[in-house]
């Protein structure tokens, strides 16, 4: 039986995590350790509640009418949702094709995972951090070639419009010039939905 720790379920999010009315489901577990992570709770694998895909489906289907009427659905975040590929696949089997399933991901996951999940997902919201490898490493504690490989592959295997790439201004880690360089490179890769944003520092 597939289970996953989920530390938050946020209903009725209007166009913030994808199209239409969405419910955000936040998984525990993340390979990165970003200094300004908004959900450090997700790092702790002991927190949260154990769910099976069936339990989650039963809980979130109360908003099915809103999902269907607005082309919304469930956005999996976290944490890194793509660490829970089997859970999401089973959830898709339960909810059917009409709900939109979007992931908020760093794409810092095995290449095979991305290949396996691409058909199942309707959209991606990618927090790319910074394309400069040194900045990425300093901020996340990990290397980024895998991220770029994954991004390139999903751009080539589906409509690029379903992929929104968010580029943060990261205080003390990158400059406006770094952000501009990242944006330019992303556009050159074929990304059509790019969004710059400021990290909230607490």
């Amino acid at each position, binding site marked *: 039986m597939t289970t996953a720790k989920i530390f938050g379920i946020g209903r009725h999010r209007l166009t913030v995590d994808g199209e239409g009315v969405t419910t955000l489901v*936040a998984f525990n577990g993340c390979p990165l350790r970003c200094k300004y992570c908004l959900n450090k709770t997700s790092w702790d694998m002991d927190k949260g509640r154990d769910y099976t895909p069936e339990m989650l489906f039963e809980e979130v289907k109360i908003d099915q*009418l809103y999902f269907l009427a607005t082309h919304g659905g469930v956005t999996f975040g976290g944490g890194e949702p793509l660490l829970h590929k089997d859970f999401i696949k089973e959830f898709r089997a339960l909810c059917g094709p009409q709900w939109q399933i979007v992931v908020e991901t760093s794409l810092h996951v095995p290449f095979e995972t991305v290949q396996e999940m691409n058909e199942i997902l309707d959209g991606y919201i990618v927090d790319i951090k910074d394309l400069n490898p040194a900045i990425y490493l300093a901020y996340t504690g990990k290397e980024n070639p895998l991220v770029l490989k994954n991004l390139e592959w999903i751009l080539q295997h589906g409509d690029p419009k379903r992929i929104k790439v968010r580029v943060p201004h990261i205080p003390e880690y990158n400059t406006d010039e770094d952000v501009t360089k990242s944006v330019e490179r992303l556009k050159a890769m074929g990304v059509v939905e790019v969004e710059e944003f400021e990290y909230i520092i607490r």
Partner: protein
Amino acid sequence: MAKGKQTCKILKEIRKQIAAENDIKLVIEECTYQGDCRGTCPKCEAEVRYLERELEKRQRMGKAAMVAGLSVGLLGASQVALAQQPDTITPKSNYSEELMEKVAILGEIPIRYIAIDLFAHREVMDLFAPSVTKNLDIVGFNLNAPDDWNWTSENDFMELVKANTKNFYTPVFSGGESELIDFISQNLGKNADGNAYGDMEVAFTVEPNGKLSHIEIIKGINEQLDAQVAALFKFMEWKPALWELNSGEKIPFACQCVQKLHFPMITH
């Protein structure tokens, strides 16, 4: 406008669109909760469950449920329009602060408050069965849980309800439905339209104190008679809906109803 209220208005618009597209009568009351909410509340949830049941009925009758993509254009447009609207909340509250505060915040993610949603749980709805009359529909209600209950999810809450509930009693006009018919008939008196014929449906909320609020004729016969009947409902007092716990405690709760009336009335 506060974010929760804005969400509430958009969701309400979606419900209205679904109802209109599928020819479903939907009683939408002006929300009287003061202060911000989480975008939904037990009353809003009850409306969604009502729509689901009505759509199911239509599907069983072989009709298509028109929902997919119906409100796709609404979100962008609504958010612009809502930003320009004045806040119209009146300083009254149907919902307790306590209930609306059943919200936990973990990190950045607001955990949804626990919707008290009995319509989704038929076995609990069945607890109503002994006291439902054929002319009175219950379309929504709001339970305030006892102070010592703790729960973390809707399912947990429902388990508590099932484990602790002995019965639900629908609101009732003092003396019952026959008295209600007599009351209306006698008070309409000679001013009533003697030729009125057909069914009328009156929506209203029976508050925990037995007073009626949010009275609306949702299916009328003629303007004059509709106004007369609506005026009479303003004077009525009902026995409120009661939630009887296994402990014997009975807790009154607000209940949104639709009463059917047949004209000409047969009095007793």
